[in-house]
């Protein structure tokens, strides 16, 4: 009986202290947006973000290696090939406007068509952060 209690207690302690466990008091993370890249488009190609909001973009490829660059934003990721994982980046809409993102790895004849926009919408009056 003692051994069983010890084992159960150990498992509970391990679960609570493991890296994957989220303390109840921790603030929720940014909104996660799944993005798909394939020749020659991103889906969605227009991503709305509220002013002041932080979003996490998880970008999968459906075919070859693509890139994900936010023009002028210093973000330039490699998106692995289909089935080989995904790229992650975070974006904070600190200023309203339209921010272009594009494929930054030559992916074929229509490479330059592969673009999209992050649209940061102004916060309602009185809610600006």
């Amino acid at each position, binding site marked *: 009986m003692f051994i069983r209690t010890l084992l159960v207690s150990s498992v509970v302690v391990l679960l609570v202290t493991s890296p994957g466990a989220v303390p109840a008091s921790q603030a929720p993370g940014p909104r996660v947006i799944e993005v798909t890249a394939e020749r020659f488009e991103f889906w969605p190609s227009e991503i709305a973000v509220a002013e002041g909001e932080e979003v996490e973009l998880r970008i999968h490829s459906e075919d070859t290696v693509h890139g994900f660059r936010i023009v002028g934003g210093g973000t330039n990721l490699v998106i692995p090939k289909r089935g080989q994982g995904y790229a992650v980046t975070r974006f904070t809409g600190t200023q309203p406007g339209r921010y272009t993102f594009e494929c930054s790895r030559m992916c074929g004849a229509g490479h330059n*068509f592969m673009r999209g926009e992050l649209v940061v919408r102004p916060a309602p009056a009185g809610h600006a952060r």
Partner: protein
Amino acid sequence: MTPAPYETQSAPRWTVVVMLLALLWSTPVAAQQTDAANDGYPSTGPLSGYMDFHFNKADGENGVLDFHRFVLLLSHAFSPRLRFVGELELEHAFVEGLEESGELELEQAYVDFLLSRRLNLRAGMVLMPVGIINERHEPPVYNGVERPFVDTVIVPSTWFEVGAGVHGDLGRGWRYRAYVVAPLNALEFAADEGIRGGRQKGSEADVRNVAYTGRVEYLGIRRLTLGASVWTGESSFAAPRLDTSVTLGEFDARFRRERLELRWQFAQVRIGDAARLNDSLGRTIGVSPNVASSLRGFYGEAGYRIWNAGAPRDLVAFVRYENFDTQFRMPAGFEPLKEFDRDAWVTGLTYYPDPDIAVKADYIFLRNQSGLFPSRHLVNLGLGWWF
């Protein structure tokens, strides 16, 4: 890091204004301002390309091994808004002057002036924005060792010309491109391959007349792409007394859900003044080429990923039906050659040991409506890759 907004809601609408802005943006001073937050420009992209080689065997004929395409793509970004893309293709591995052999082709070489999401300029050697394959022709992208027949004899891919135009994304899933390009040469049209021989390929192209081409795509529903294309132009510059206007209209759709992928395309070509074109050519070369006044083709394809565990456990089976007739409508006084009213069943497998490598095998049953020419059975094997 948050970049400066690329475009705001108050972006100018008038084309003239935007074109003037294009000129301003392309000046060195403006580029310095634009590029301030974009380290690394100018930059030359890595060498990319695609290749494929085939084994083709038709019943009653010897098999053929052909290194069909060796293509290199180059890219260079002068700045975030000024980009160059080039595509140089060697077909059939060997080029020798004055003999029937391979081809060395400059399929793309253009500069993009990326102004805004909605409006961008492009000039140089451009791909005609017609059909599924012409702008999406990397071997891992399509099923089958060879490209569809419809995308060969109705839409003459790879179809490229010198020209200039605009392209952009209008939002809500709508995308477009429109170019002014060099026209076709009607004196090179033929009964079996339609307008294919008329491509000037940007080689000292005659622009006594110009042609117009454009495409609209709708991508507003996930995994569905709808497209419509048009190409129209006066094509008798080499015989000015003729009035051979050519118009090609095309519709296509692609859809993918889970393991299933569907494709459909329809294309029709109208050739004006075909009777006089045939008469004129008949007097010149001694035999009428029997060019039709209308060509038509369509196909539907279903592919299913029967092994879907990710490369190297990635296998697609497909079947495609094609119907294509380069003698669909004849001018008055000319009879259609029924051997060019054809249809084909194509079925096969595409195996991906890597997402960028396609090992292909297919079987084709090619029929025609003539009682004189038998149906053909073809077996093809191929290996194609992209890097």
